[in-house]
């Protein structure tokens, strides 16, 4: 917690002069730096973020490193847990007192943009303060609102099918590869059941208590889960819903996937069926492979979700775990951009952070960290890297009623599997109830 001790301050004073000399030299030599921070001016930046104690410790270390390299910038950290963070931000926004840099969530980015609380980052990319040359366009675009960039992603994630290579080999099925189809999935699943006598997986990928499975399927066929307005679902024809959940229902009836009885009991990564070898496949976000492998106590592998035969685009998308945004209250946006650049591109800084906020968005940083990673972490780095090529841009953030829509889907899905309603009735019920909630009734 003790951020700086008096001795550090003195050190800072010495290196300030040194650094000034270096800065001047570099400027003279290259003559291309469009912006020189004047050494006389002492800038204080405020940064706010949420997170666990581990994140606080790591971030504070990076701030220290940044201050050492930029002696004229002092950083005042403000951090809390997730709970309470947004209340605090709302109060600060009301008081025109937001920190220069705030950690931002995908769900709130639009809200803050619409309230005019953020500054666009594009000018700093143009002026070269913020270097995004090593970042995929699709990753960058997740922070764009209205064509302008308002947030820099601090890490990436995507969903994946996790499988047990040993069990698959025993069942005599080839390991799934990127580009496999839903038909391949079903065939693999049936073979696991028939040869090993265990469930292939708990459910179709992310189909239970989760919208991502259906969302993936809708996206593959050119739709989005939500209408851009956020006031209704992104589709009107129930056929895709029926098709997707028909696969699930069919495999449950055949005993290939676990019945609802079991699915409703699963609450954590640790008691997933794959952990206890009662299933050979599962579906999770890439960073979760670390947790699930250690729970299982054996190596697991992963690949992207299946393609649809007739797909019009990739269903997979890369999700930003969180962002840094510069707020309109910042008087030193340039210095703030410099810090974000440091956070994004400095390999030294990221060696401290160790992908705690997700897979780093800069390919150079990813390469720089490779040798330091555990095998599971490396796998998730590689898959997120590959997903850059096999994905399409993420849809706009979900509307506020998102949590309720998830519950409705879960409700209807249970009714379908317990035979209370047919697939078609379930699809209709879901669409009508979700639309009513989204319309704000």
């Amino acid at each position, binding site marked *: 917690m003790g951020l700086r001790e008096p001795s550090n301050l003195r050190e800072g004073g010495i290196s300030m002069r040194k650094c000034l000399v270096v800065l001047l030299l570099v400027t003279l030599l290259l003559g291309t730096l469009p912006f020189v921070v004047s050494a006389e001016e002492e800038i204080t930046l405020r940064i706010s973020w949420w997170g666990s104690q581990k994140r606080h410790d790591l971030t504070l270390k990076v701030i220290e490193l940044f201050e050492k390299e930029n002696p004229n910038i002092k950083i005042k950290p403000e951090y809390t847990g997730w709970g309470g963070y947004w209340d605090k931000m709302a109060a600060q926004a009301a008081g025109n007192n937001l920190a220069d840099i705030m950690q931002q969530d995908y769900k709130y980015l639009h809200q803050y943009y619409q309230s005019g609380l953020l500054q666009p980052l594009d000018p700093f990319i143009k002026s070269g303060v913020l270097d995004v040359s090593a970042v995929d366009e699709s990753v960058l675009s997740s922070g764009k609102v209205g064509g302008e960039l308002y947030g820099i992603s601090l890490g990436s994630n995507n969903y994946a099918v996790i499988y047990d290579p040993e069990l698959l080999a025993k069942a005599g099925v080839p390991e799934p590869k990127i580009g496999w189809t839903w038909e391949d999935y079903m065939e693999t699943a049936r073979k696991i059941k028939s040869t090993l006598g265990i469930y292939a997986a708990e459910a179709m990928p992310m189909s239970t208590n989760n919208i991502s499975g259906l969302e993936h399927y809708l996206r593959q066929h050119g739709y989005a889960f939500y209408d851009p307005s956020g006031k209704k679902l992104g589709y009107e024809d129930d056929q895709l819903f029926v098709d997707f959940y028909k696969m699930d229902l069919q495999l449950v009836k055949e005993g290939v996937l676990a019945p609802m009885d079991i699915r409703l009991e699963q609450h954590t990564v640790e008691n997933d069926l794959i952990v206890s070898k009662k299933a050979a496949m599962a579906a999770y976000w890439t960073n979760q492979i670390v947790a699930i492998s250690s729970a299982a106590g054996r190596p697991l592998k992963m690949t992207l979700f299946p393609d649809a035969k007739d797909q019009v685009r990739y269903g997979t998308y890369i999700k930003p775990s969180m962002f840094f945004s510069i707020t309109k209250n910042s008087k030193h946006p340039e210095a703030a951009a410099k810090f974000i650049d440091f956070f994004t591109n400095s390999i030294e800084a990221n060696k401290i952070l160790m992908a705690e906020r997700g897979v780093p968005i800069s390919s150079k940083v990813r390469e720089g960290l490779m040798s330091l990673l555990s095998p599971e972490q490396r796998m998730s780095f590689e898959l997120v890297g590959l997903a850059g090529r096999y994905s399409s841009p993420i849809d706009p953030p979900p509307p506020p009623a998102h949590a309720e829509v998830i*519950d409705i889907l879960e409700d209807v899905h249970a*009714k379908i599997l317990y035979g209370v309603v047919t697939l078609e009735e379930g699809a209709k019920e879901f669409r009508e109830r979700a639309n009513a909630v989204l319309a704000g009734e």
Partner: protein
Amino acid sequence: MRPYFRLFSAIGGKVKRKEYDNLAGYIFIMPWLFGFLAFMIVPMIMSLYLSLTRYNVLSSPTWVGLENYIKIFTKDPRFVQSLKVTGVYVATAVPLRLTFALFLAVLFSQKRMLVGFYRTIYYVPSLIGGSVAVAVMWRQLFGVYGALNSFLTSSGIMESNFGWITNPRTALWSLIVLAAWQFGSPMLIFLAGLKQIPASLYEVAAIDGANWWQTFTRITIPMLSPVIFFNLVMQTINNFMMFTQAYIITEGHPFDRTLVYILYLFQRGFTYNQMGYACALAWVLLVVVGIVTALIFKSSPHWVYYESKGDL
């Protein structure tokens, strides 16, 4: 005492002894009074105000009048469902729990070896029964891969595993059985009540040749009826507010079959960020519980026997 007395006489001029005593009394209960005002009355007033607003926690509440209440009563099928589930739960869990409690209390009121030990042992479930740990254990016990299924399948009673806590047919019952198991505190109250029954009544019955059942139904039950009444009211109110078990064990699944009222209220408030609506639901529950309690009170003259009627 004296300096205070002087202080008050200085403030209020001539303070009579009695007024001074009252004042001292208020000062003594000040900590409690402060807590009551700050943590009960103020939140209640706030909750009443919020129930008339739309409040998503992130931005400030906006006044909508009776909109939340109108919505609850006209177009919220899940409200009806949660009320139904809670009704079934209370109507089965309370009688079951009280029956168990009475049965064991009668058993333990007899003077036998180790009876004190058993009383303690059987009280333990209600000490820990409402806790998260027991709820988690319950999930393990009745889960698809739980102990109950292992026993039933290995002993040949059932052929395959069954999801007791997730299947629509049995889910609510897994919660009711858990509630029945927590019979400890009504049991203690029954025990105390049984000791109050004069032994002479039993002696007279024995002389007249009454058998055990006659003694139980003609003496024990009537004499115990005020205690039964008390337990019934307390348990009914308590069970209307059941939350932890449903939240941990079933989460309202499957398709709202175990969606007890408070769980629904919690979902609205904390999962869907509709705090105004949740507050309105809370006030509706207050009225519902009030009505049910009033009905129980109304019925009491017909079955509760007070020996000392009117003496108070």
